[in-house]
């Protein structure tokens, strides 16, 4: 059962004198939902950026599907089946939702470098895939509106759909609930749940919202000051004294 799809060993990332990530190791089981939590400045986002190739690791090793990708360029990671979102939605603001998806779809179909127009069958395949993605995140009604005009939550859903457009097996979400209103949170949580239950994808996410983490994640890793403080199931993490002291806060855990 424990089929590790993504593994990081002894990751170190310093910025000058700041030891943002210090010797962190992590394994992600294929088909699971795992979360990384920790107080502000714990190094969650840095770790995430190091794992997804946005930063170079100072040392350590990252393996994806058994292949060493520590120094692999981003486009190779995407081709291997990695997808990610950012803390502040990273989208093409002036393009329509449909076009935002189109860029990833034509990239996945190896058409991005083509100078001639796509032929009818390829066009049809892409359009069908776009429809499916729009359905999945429920953005069909806004398909032809520029993303910049959508509400924050819809932009986040658009970004998740974009990260799916390249057919990933592992989706990495960097604080998917950041800056969302309560109602929007529910929509996004539903979509993330569906990533796992409907599409069978492996999900690794960083999140601040404890309710979301405890309700979604199967395994949780707690970071504090760049190091791993604890690791385990939601129940184990909730019961962990060190984690409680570090930041979670008693009320939240008891209320869940």
């Amino acid at each position: 059962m424990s089929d590790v799809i993504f593994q990081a060993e002894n990751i170190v990332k310093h910025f000058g004198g700041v030891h943002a990530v210090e010797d962190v190791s992590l394994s992600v089981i294929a088909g699971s939902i795992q979360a990384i939590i920790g107080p502000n400045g714990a190094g969650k986002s840095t770790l995430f950026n190091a794992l997804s190739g946005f930063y170079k690791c100072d040392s350590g090793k990252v393996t994806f599907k058994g292949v060493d990708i520590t120094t692999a360029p981003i486009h190779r990671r995407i081709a291997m089946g990695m997808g990610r979102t950012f803390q502040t939605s990273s989208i093409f603001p002036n393009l329509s939702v449909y076009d935002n998806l189109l860029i990833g779809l034509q990239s996945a179909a190896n058409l991005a470098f083509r100078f001639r127009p796509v032929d009818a069958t390829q066009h049809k395949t892409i359009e069908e895939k776009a429809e499916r993605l729009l359905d999945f995140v429920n953005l069909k009604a806004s398909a032809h509106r520029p993303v910049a005009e959508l509400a924050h939550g819809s932009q986040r859903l658009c970004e998740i759909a974009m990260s799916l457009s390249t057919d990933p097996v592992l989706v990495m979400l960097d604080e998917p609930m950041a800056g969302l209103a309560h109602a929007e949170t529910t929509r996004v949580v539903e979509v993330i749940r569906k990533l796992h239950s409907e599409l069978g994808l492996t999900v690794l996410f960083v999140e601040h919202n404890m309710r979301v983490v405890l309700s979604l994640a199967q395994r949780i890793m707690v970071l504090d000051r760049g190091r791993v403080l604890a690791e385990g199931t939601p129940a184990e993490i909730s019961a962990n004294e060190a984690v409680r002291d570090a930041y979670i806060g008693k009320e939240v855990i008891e209320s869940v």
Partner: protein
Amino acid sequence: MRMSNRAGLIAALVLLVLLILTPQIAPLLHLAISVCTEVLLFAIAAMAVNLLIGYTGVLPFGNAAFFGLGAYGAGLTIQFWHVKFFSSIGLGVLAALIGAFLIGPFLLRRRGIYFSLLFIAFGQVFYFLAYRFTDITGGEDGMNFARPVIEGTSFSPPDGSFYYMMLGFFVLIGILFWLLVRSPFGRSLIAIKENETRARYLGLDTDRFIFVALLISAAIEGLAGACYGLSIMFADPLQLDWHQSGNFVLMTILGGSGTIFGPFIGSLIFVIGSDILSSAIPWWQIPLGALFVVCVLGFPKGILGTILDALEKRRGGFGYEARDTLHGTVASEREIQP
């Protein structure tokens, strides 16, 4: 066909008719035909710049290096190898392409303002080469050469027919440009302009895309430069200079970057404007500079961009940049980010 496409096509045909009639109209306006040729050639060069500014999102502040390489490529091969008309243009394009191939990998190491600064620096290398190697290039004085005969004939086109040949190039480049920015490759470039990080995380090797865009841009600009050299039968270091780069950037932004016809409008205003102003007042560059400031501050989408935006909004759209690229792309002119 969408209405905007049809309107664009009609506008293009009207423009084409006007350009065909230009040699008849120009004398009535006291314009020399060589000035009209210059409008076309600078418009081609500005289109090359537009590919990078308006569709890829990088600021090419040294782009005239490719323009000058085109002019010297044609001039030197005419002078020393006695090549004929179209071969000299082809060799000018080749010179620009080789230049882009050499400096491209260095430029791509940086983005934003650093890309632009590196571009100026590497562009100036060619300026100093032309300036220094006096024996070959004539140095500061530049080099004169005769317009060669066309392959297989003993005909060297005079200014009148030369204009029509350049109009042919202008139309050809315009059509290829239109096809390019609508192709999947063009859409990928627009994505890179909109958000390069996201484009990377959708699997695009953005360095490769920007490099190819740079090569295409250099080839177009080399063509414009080679033809410009043949037009005035002269090449000099100022054609390679970063001031010249600035002029092409100005034309692009003034006319409307990210639009097909914007660079032509920019070139028209710039060339005709400086032609009229420079004969009237000695400080003619000041009003031109002021116009640029007004443009950047007041309507950053440029003349054509602002008009298209207004038309699209009147029709209840979201602005011309929001049109689905699949059905017809005009990329937006966003603020240039460092």
